[in-house]
Structure formats: structure tokens, C-alpha cells
């Protein structure tokens, strides 16, 4: 095994790069300057340093990514707006890297990382949520192409995406996990229709995507025909890792909003609400420390299952804290800023009103794997408890009750 890049090496390379490419000018310039800077950073292997050389990385340890990101940020360099391209960075890229051909890598990874091309994920369907492997979107082979028909849902960024990772059923006559195939879909192809999906907050972060006779060249397939479930595991595993989230200071998240409300408004305080506040503060701090410990485990190269605890408790806490805030605000909490349908690209838990937080938080236990599915995973994979009797794994997909 080749020796890995050290932190000192990396810092040297970054310094050299920054000497050649003025970060401030790139940040202060227009889109073109910004993009040129990001492309150069990619080409220098300083984009995602744990990716292979030539594909934006240096084959370095994953730990060093933090070093690179912090160094560029400290230098005032423009970033690739990671909040906007999270699906590409977190899910599509590792999957393309692991299952794509060199031509795929060459075509897709650079514009993905620079943010020139936004990606979205076409997995969930109205009839296949928790049971993703039960999906029905059909892909049929036709010459060198595949023809796809079906409906996907809960697709964030679909309305601005250039590419999608797409999971389809290519063989309904075998058990459900065996009949899936994984593609990269051109979102500008004829037959792709994107409709906003309005959610209970009034806005539409997500979309429904209708696929009608959409042609995908076989060359855009990732992995073998029928191996889609295996390929999708790469995507989903990376989703779970990335949900571990950033390191926040104490009171850095939603609990900080509640704590501020409490401090700002002594007249609303009651003993009962104080008890609730303190219970939530403790749980939020416990969750935060757990997140720190998970990051230390990752950094030490010993990722454990504790990340599941982070996602599960995040959902519970965001719901409980936002509910407590409404309880604290009383009458004033019944006032919202707006019900207008907008198309936000990020969830803003600390900037909006209390009603938004309460409502939006309801999605945290549904999106990215419901809390129920997560509890099943913890019970079976972490604790080793036995699976329930399964009735769906040995029957041809087409014969399953639905």
C-alpha cells in the first residue's frame, strides 16, 4: 500500500495552490472567476482529498478533508456551496466512483464537485417508501437504450438538477431485491417531468418526478443489470455517514433558539415549562456530545454504529424542542410569517418562525429513512435482535401483495 499523504504534505500543497490562485479575487469576482478557482482546486487534487488522484483527490485519509476545507475557508476562498449540492457530494459521487467506469468518472465528477451540475436522487416512490426495494418504476431494454416509466417522489433539487441517480425495476419476475438496476439519468431528457410537491409548511422543497418513456443509454448504467440493490447500498451508506453532521458548539442548534427565547422573555416563564426546557437542554447537549464522539470515532478510523443514534435523536429532539418553543410562546406562537409556496433549497431551522420549525421538524422522522426503519436497523444490526418473519423476500416482485 502506497504511503498516504500527511497533514503537513497537504498543507504545503494548499499553500502552493493558494500562492498561484488568489482566493480573495475568486471570491470577490463573478461566477466565472469562482468556477475557474474551483476547477483548479479540483484539478490540483484538493477538492475531496480522499478521492483518487486525477479525480479531485490525493488518495488521502478521509480525516484530512476537514483540514483542506478549513484551510480554504480561512484563506477566504469561495466554496462549492455544499448545502446546494449535498446529494451530489454525499450520495451520487461515492456511487459513481465505486460503480462507474473511468469515462463516467471523467464526465461527471468534476462538474458535480464544482457545483456546475446539480444532482438529485430518484429512489422513493409513492408505493415504496420504507420498503424501497419494492419500487415499481420500470426500465425495459430497447436496443442500446433503456426505456423508463414510473413515478418518483420526495426528490429535492429535481427542479434544478442536471443529473439524477435512479433506481428502477428491470425484472419483475424475480424477488424484489434481485430485479433492480441503477442508472444515471439526464434530467433534461424528453419524458422527464418535474412537479413541485407542496408540504405542510406551505413551501415545496421537494418534487414529484414523472418518467414517461424516458430513454437512457445503457452506457449510463451503474453496476450490472439486476445489481441495483447492491449499488444503492453504496448510496445509502454514504447518506447515513453524511447525516452525522457538523460539529456545533453548545446551544448551536435549535435548542439555542429556545434558550434565547427563554432568556429574552422572563414573563412567559413557568415552572412547568422550565422543567421541559431543562430536560430538552440536557438531551440536546447529550446528542451534541454524542455527535462529537462519532466524529472522533470517524477521525480515528473506527466508525461505529453510534451515528444512527445521532440521526434518530436529532429527529426526536427537533420535534420536541420546536413543540416546546410553541408552548412557550403561547398566543404569539400561533402567528406565522407566511404560507406562501416558495422553493427553498435548504432547511432553515434557526432563521424562520416557530411555526415553521414545528411543522418542518415533522419531516425529520420521515425523510432519509423513517425513525421506525432506523429503529429496526439499530435493533437488528447493532443489537443483533432477530428479524421479524419475512413474507416478501422469496416471492417474485410481481406476485407480492400491495
Amino acid at each position, binding site marked *: 500500500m502506497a504511503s498516504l499523504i500527511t497533514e503537513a504534505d497537504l498543507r504545503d500543497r494548499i499553500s502552493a495552490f493558494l500562492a498561484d490562485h488568489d482566493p480573495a479575487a475568486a471570491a470577490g469576482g463573478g461566477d466565472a472567476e469562482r468556477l475557474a478557482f474551483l476547477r483548479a482546486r479540483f484539478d490540483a487534487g484538493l477538492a475531496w482529498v480522499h478521492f483518487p488522484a486525477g479525480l479531485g483527490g490525493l488518495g488521502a485519509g478521509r480525516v484530512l478533508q476537514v483540514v483542506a476545507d478549513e484551510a480554504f475557508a480561512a484563506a477566504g476562498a469561495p466554496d462549492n456551496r455544499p448545502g446546494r449540492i449535498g446529494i451530489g457530494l454525499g450520495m451520487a459521487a461515492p456511487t459513481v466512483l465505486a460503480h462507474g467506469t473511468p469515462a463516467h468518472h471523467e464526465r461527471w465528477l468534476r462538474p458535480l464537485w464544482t457545483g456546475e451540475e446539480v444532482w438529485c436522487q430518484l429512489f422513493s416512490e409513492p408505493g415504496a417508501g420504507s420498503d424501497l426495494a419494492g419500487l415499481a418504476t420500470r426500465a425495459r431494454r430497447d436496443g442500446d437504450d433503456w426505456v423508463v416509466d414510473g413515478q418518483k417522489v420526495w426528490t429535492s433539487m429535481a427542479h434544478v438538477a442536471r443529473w439524477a441517480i435512479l433506481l428502477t425495476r428491470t425484472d419483475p419476475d424475480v424477488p424484489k431485491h434481485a430485479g433492480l438496476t441503477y442508472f444515471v439519468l439526464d434530467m433534461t431528457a424528453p419524458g422527464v417531468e418535474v412537479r413541485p410537491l407542496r*408540504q405542510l409548511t406551505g413551501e415545496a422543497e421537494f418534487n414529484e418526478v414523472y418518467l414517461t418513456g424516458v430513454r437512457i443509454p445503457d452506457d449510463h448504467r451503474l453496476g450490472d443489470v439486476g445489481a441495483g440493490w447492491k449499488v444503492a447500498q453504496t448510496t445509502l451508506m454514504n447518506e447515513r455517514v453524511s447525516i452525522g453532521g457538523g460539529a456545533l458548539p453548545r446551544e448551536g442548534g435549535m435548542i439555542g433558539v429556545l434558550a434565547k427565547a427563554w432568556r429574552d422573555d422572563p414573563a412567559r416563564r413557568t*415552572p412547568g*415549562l422550565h422543567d421541559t426546557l431543562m430536560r430538552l437542554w440536557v438531551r440536546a447537549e447529550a446528542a451534541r456530545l454524542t455527535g462529537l464522539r462519532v466524529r472522533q470515532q470517524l477521525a480515528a478510523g473506527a466508525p461505529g454504529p453510534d451515528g444512527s443514534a445521532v440521526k434518530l435523536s436529532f429527529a426526536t429532539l427537533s420535534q420536541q424542542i420546536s413543540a416546546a418553543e410553541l408552548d412557550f410562546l403561547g*398566543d404569539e406562537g400561533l*402567528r406565522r410569517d407566511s404560507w406562501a409556496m416558495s422553493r427553498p433549497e435548504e432547511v432553515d431551522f434557526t432563521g424562520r418562525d416557530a411555526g415553521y420549525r414545528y411543522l418542518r421538524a*415533522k419531516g425529520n422522522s420521515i425523510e432519509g429513512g423513517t425513525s421506525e426503519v432506523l429503529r429496526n436497523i439499530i435493533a437488528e444490526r447493532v443489537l443483533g435482535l432477530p428479524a421479524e418473519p419475512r413474507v416478501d423476500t422469496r416471492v417474485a416482485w410481481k406476485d407480492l*401483495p400491495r
Partner: protein
Amino acid sequence: MSDLLESPDEVDLRAGVREMLAAECPWQSVLAFVSSGGEAYDQKLWRTLGTGMGLAGLLVPEAQGGAGAQWRAAGVVVEELGRAVAPVPFLSSAVVATTALGAGGSPALLGQLASGELTAALAVPYGLWKAPRLLSVAGGVVTGTVRGVADALGAGLLLVPAEDGLYAVEGSAVRRTRVVSLDETRPLCDLEFAAAPARLVASLEAVPCALRAAATLTAAEQVGLASWCLDTTVEHLKSRYQFARPVGSFQALKHRLADLWVELTQARAVVAYAVADLASGGEDASVAASLAKIVGSEVAVRAAEECVQMHGGIGFTWEHPAHLYLKRAKATSVAYGSPDRHRARLAGLVDLPLEAS
């Protein structure tokens, strides 16, 4: 001990109201009402319900053109309206405002309310749980503001608690600003009285009674709301398949719904007791009202939250009715005193003080 079971008349009344609401107030029409966001309440539905079925005058004595019915009947109606999240001012006008006018209220006014042609709102914040802030009336005009009043936007008459009594102010004489409300099925508005002409219509005597009734009947509404959420969730889970099984066969969900059913069953008993106690003159009415408001609020919010969660993604969308119930549940939990406020009040009533006396 009060009779906690429903009488045959009450069973009939419930069936009648439910049938009417099924025809005139399906959730699609509530969603359309909320999405359009312009109206104060559903006027067509209110005509059918208030005037057509005569429910606007349910609690108004027969002498004043009402039905002279008991609180128990109002409880049945409110519960059904809660099941339908119906955007009508029954609770605010036909219960709270009507009660605030009291036995000594003007017969003409009560008659107008009974007919359903006029609706009134008690000009107090929706979350009020103790004695209202009193406005000042001098020289026949009132000045001041009240924030976040329920169903005041479409009310013909606002009933203003002032130092020397309850005054009536024409809705048109008040600057009313619609609030973008968490629960748009019962929008709030801010009231600004700028020397608005006001006439004395009753003493303040009946106002505490109106607030007690408001808390108690809000709990009845919450029981109806929670029932809808539980029923709808159960039906969804029976028909939704994942992993080739109805989702309702998964034990973790079953147990949560069983617990919810237990909580709802208890809330039903508590509300039956509280409404019956209002009806009987109510020596235990304050305890019962607080108890009902606590238990009702908790079960409504929990039922609505479980309804959203157990519907999965679909329950998170605007096009599914679950959010109408979630928003109503959370708003009613604040209305007329949150559980936290009522627990504090209850502590005093049952001699379990926090501080040493």
C-alpha cells in the same frame, strides 16, 4: 355521579351533525378554504349548520329563539365539528360569546345570534386562561387593542370586557388585521378599537363561566379531532402495504396506536364528566374544565402528530388533510390555556401547591 354515557338524543344529534358535515364539509373543502386564505370562515357551511340546522342558537333559551339545549348537546356538536376541522364560528360565537352574554344579555341580541345571521366574538386573546384584560370605555366609545382573537375577523359583533361590564362593538367599527395563523381553519385577527362606539350589553359576571365553557368545549373539539386522526391512521395502515404486509400489522405501530386509543378513551371520559358538570351547575366545574383541557390538548396533539408520522411522506404534504388537524391541534392546545397553565391552576384547586402555604 354524573352520567358519563350518551343519551339516545345525543346519539341522534351526533349522527345528524356528522352526516351533514360528511356532505357539506369534506376535508377537501376545508383544504380549499385554507389554501385560498381569504375568508374569515366558511359562510355556506355556517348557513347550513347555524341557520339550517338551528345550531347557532343551541344554547340560547327558547324564549329568545334558541333551542335551549344543554351543554351536553353543545359538546356533541363541537366534537363533530372538531372531527371535521370545520371552519365555522360555532365554538366562538354560539358557545363562548353566547355564554359571555349570559342570562342577563339582551334578548334581541341573543335572538340575532340564535338565528345565525349575526356572529359575535368575545374580544380576548385566543390563549386567554384567566381574567381578561379590561379595556376602558368612556363616553360611549372604546379605545385599545386586543391581539390574536379567534373568529373575530368575520364577527358582526365584538364583545369587549371593560371595567364596568361587557360592551358590544360593531365589527365594522373596528380595525381588524388578519393574522397569518398557524391554524388557518380558525384564523386569528388583531383588533384595534379607536374610539369605537360601544354599548353596554351585559355584566362581566358570565365571562368566567364563558371561559370555563370555552376550555371544556375546546376539549370536546380536541376529542373529535383526535378521533379523526386515530380512525384515519388506522384505515391508512390497514390499506398501506410495505414489505408485502399491511403496515398496520407492524407491532411497534400497533402498540403506539393502542396507547393512543387508551389516552383517547380516557379523554372521552374526562370530557364527558366536564361537560356534564358544566350542565349540572358544576361545583367541580373548574377542576373538571382544567382536567379536560389538559387531557384533550395532549391527546389531540399526540394523535395529530402520530397521524402525520404514520402516514409517512404523504402525511407531510399539503394535499393530505393531516396537517389541517396538526395545526388545529397545536393551536387549540394553546387556546383558553395550555396544559401547563391548567396544571398550575389545578394545583391550586386541589390543594397541591408548589410553594408552602
